[in-house]
């Protein structure tokens, strides 16, 4: 069966079983390897991508369910040469240790910033709760998100963000 996917603004017609998880199609067919397979149960968030602007677990999303809807992956935020604001902040804060969860973390955080450009600490923590990091870099991840918020506002120095 042919399924048409719109990923990071580009359309792809794919011959695929509609029950296939979106994550497999992104990685295996479209070679977008940012999103990772973590638990396959929707409990860790490593596979997080955006569907119509909302964060979703791509490992539990049948590809047939998202035909024609807007899918955004971490590759859609920027590239290694030209990273997006949040990607840059993660890099500056060195928020990755093994890096396996990071694409999911960034996409989850991006969904928050798209909806609320100036979240407070409690809102950030509540929003990020669904994503896990087994290395334990959560504090750096939170710092990276705060940095991105401050960079976007442009009113605080990076030093202030560090606190």
């Amino acid at each position, binding site marked *: 069966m042919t399924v048409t996917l719109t990923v990071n603004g580009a359309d792809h017609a794919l011959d695929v*079983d*509609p*029950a*296939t*998880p979106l994550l497999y199609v992104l990685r295996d067919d479209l070679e977008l390897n940012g999103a990772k397979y973590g638990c*396959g*149960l*929707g*409990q860790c968030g490593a596979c997080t991508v955006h*569907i*119509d602007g*909302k*964060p*979703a*677990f791509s*490992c*539990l*999303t*049948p*590809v*047939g*369910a*998202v035909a024609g809807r807007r899918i955004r992956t971490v590759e859609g935020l920027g590239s290694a040469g030209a990273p997006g604001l949040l990607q840059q902040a993660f890099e500056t804060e060195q928020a990755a240790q093994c890096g396996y969860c990071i694409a999911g973390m960034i996409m989850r955080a991006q969904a928050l910033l798209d909806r609320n450009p100036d979240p407070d600490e*409690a809102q950030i923590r*509540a929003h990020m709760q*669904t994503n896990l990091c087994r290395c334990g870099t959560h504090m750096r991840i939170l710092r990276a998100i705060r940095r991105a918020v401050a960079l976007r506002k442009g009113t605080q120095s990076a030093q202030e963000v560090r606190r």
Partner: protein
Amino acid sequence: MKRTRWAPWRAGRGTAGRWVAGGVLVCLVGIGAFLGIAYRSGLPPVSPPKVETFPAETLARGAALAAIGDCIVCHTADGGVPYAGGRALATPFGTLYSTNITPDPETGIGTWSTDAFKRAMRDGVSRDGSHLYPALPYDHYRQVHDGDLDAIYAFLMTRAPVVAPARANDLIFPLGFRPLLAGWKLLFLHQEEFTPRPDRDAAWNRGAYLAEGLGHCSGCHSPRNLAGAEETGTKAYSGGLAEGWAAPALNGSSPAAVPWTADSLFTYLRTGVDGRHGAAAGPMGPVVHGLSRAPEADVRAIATYIASLSADRPGTAPKTPALPERTAEAARVNPAGASLFAGACAGCHEDGAPMMTQGRPGLSTVTALQLDRPDNAIRAILQGFHAPTGPAGPAMPPFAASLTDTQVADLAAYLRSRFSDRPAWTALETAAATVRQEESQP
């Protein structure tokens, strides 16, 4: 319009005067009588009692009873300080906000005497004499023994005081006028202190006392009448609604695929999941959270009592649906639903999936798929739920972002036809849209 014949003012002046005077008198007597019934005096304030005035044993018992009564659930706002109130309680009559029951003297119950506390619990009257809404289930708390109310009072009065003024309620006119509640109480507040049944054993009686009193199980699991009071008699425990979730019947009309036993109820109430009925979601989650910390014997007693309510259920043999045939038929009728199930659900719920090796319930025994209403299945799919007892408990991720209302409807229809032999659900897409709309509201 036809003119009415009954027109006393058209009769002689003297007669009219008598009619008017009589009418006014009747009204005044009526209003006076009503205000007399509605009026409750304020009780004198006391200084907040000190911790050391309560024996440790009383405090421990109060903590256990408060856990069974689930005070904390309604009296804590989302993300708020425990017992400081402020949680929005949606009712058919508008939104109520729970109040601060920490011992803060200004905004909490710090100046309440034991008598004031007991009056609130039994008569639904605040210390200042104003009537409390029956969202506080005083119809149940009337059944609680004196000593237990003393213990709960001791427990609450020794929490850390929090300054948290009550939020104004948002009720339909004229229900903001509290004296009207006296009328409600005249009609519906007749419960008496619990008396044990001599033909039942101690565990059953303990369970009945806790479930009917502090536990107020029937507050959700019984239907309510137009005035918001619980139906009693044969309608008691025949199923109700709580915050948009169906609270399944616990009496003989229980829809459970496999009958409940005291053991399975104990497991469910204690851990939030039972292998042959499902997981506690929605408002049942916090109930389990409380019971997971309550004394084990009390939870067993509640399970014994609740199991006895459906003991007369017809057809107590476990159903054995011919699953393979049903699966093929469900997929034939609803290929879209089958495909969604394979991609979104099978990883946990299909036979042989990792979760199924951990004693989690198979979908053919999950009560949510056996209910007349699809609400619980749809809510679980869209919103998911957290483990009520901590990270190792049962949980489900939400699918609101990945599935459209049409897809949720297809999936729910497939689940129903594959895992239940009950009639197909209708208006599924509308039901999904309704839940999603609620979700999007702040």
